């Protein structure tokens, strides 16, 4: 049986993995060096470009996902409705965490000007945001960041795909 190259073996491992994998974990699984693994991941990303799959990445962890352009087809297959389930305040909170995160609950509330406990609990339970550690502020409050689920929800492959924050001047 012909040998598979590292890129192909990485793809196979990512296919069976149940969660996003770090470069270290991928290197360990394939017996390759971290440097070769990174190079092969970059190659995989290029190879996948015209296919139905993409290489999703967040915080140095990788996962195979479907191409965002295939969303309509997959919705039809899964008989799912388009994303209309996020309220305006939920989108607002997600935008704050995406563009200004990681940040604490009180930092989120400072921007929104409204208590956000229920909202954060709701977004956490849906996996759209995650706790990523504690702030060094007094009381060591929890820091929130967006998750891989968030990226997938909006058809983003990595944070690089997040559109730049619009510059809207308030006319006062």
């Amino acid at each position, binding site marked *: 049986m012909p040998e598979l190259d590292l890129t192909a073996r990485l793809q196979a491992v990512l296919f069976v993995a149940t969660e996003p994998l770090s470069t270290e974990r991928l290197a360990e699984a394939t017996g390759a060096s971290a440097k070769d693994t990174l190079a092969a991941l970059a190659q995989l990303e290029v190879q996948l470009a015209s296919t139905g799959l993409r290489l999703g990445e967040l915080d140095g962890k990788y996962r195979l996902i479907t191409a965002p352009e295939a969303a309509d087809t997959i919705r039809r297959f899964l008989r799912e409705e388009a994303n209309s389930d996020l309220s305006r305040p939920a989108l607002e909170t997600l935008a704050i965490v995406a563009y200004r995160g990681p940040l604490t609950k009180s930092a989120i509330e400072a921007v929104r000007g409204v208590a956000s406990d229920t909202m954060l609990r709701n977004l956490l339970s849906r996996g759209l945001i995650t706790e990523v550690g504690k702030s060094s502020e007094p009381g060591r409050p929890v820091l929130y960041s967006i998750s891989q689920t968030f990226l997938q929800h909006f058809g983003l492959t990595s944070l690089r795909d997040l559109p730049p*924050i619009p510059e809207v001047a308030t006319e006062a």
Partner: protein
Amino acid sequence: MTHTVAVGEFEGPLGILLDLVERGRLEVTAISVAEITENYLGRIKQLGPSSPEALSEFLQLGARLLYIKSLALLPQPASEEQTEELRQLNLELEEYSRLQAAARELARRGSLRSWHRTATDTLPPQELPLPKIELSQLAEAFTRALKRLEPERSVGVIQHHVSLETVSHRIREHLGRGSFDLQSLLDNCHDRLEAIVTFLALLELIREGAAQVTQANQFAPINVEPAGA
């Protein structure tokens, strides 16, 4: 002049303010705080008793606007403090407005989505290593999960409600009996929230011309009396 401001569920006071400012209807210094407050309180009433946090957050912003406005009303030219307060509030509004635009961008991506695989591969049982756990750990983990399910004790329930109308009515009653010290009015408030509402109500009465305040000199007690007394 009546502003009808639609407030979405959990939408904060900054949203309202931004809405008003963006429509160019007014500058921060021109805002009739009492009007927006009444508008918002009406909305809170519709939401029911579930949003005491929203109410207190709004009153905090209301108090800030009042402060800025009070600085503007002072006879001397715009103080450094006032300029700084206004600059800060404008910065916050800008940031909020920018993130609102970002949220709209995200909403526009609503039709796009990526899925991960959900089918699961496993090895035949004889090839899989056995879990390094004890049965007691399993029981503990389950107990922990059940504990979390217990209803949380309700904390921070607001004991009483204060409405602008009630407080306003109370002050009118006081005024009917003659003049009084502002401090005594504030001393009778149960908490800061009520004090803020009381202060707002008093300002509104002064604006309406139903009350006036006098102060003998700086830091002297502030006297509230019926207008024209």
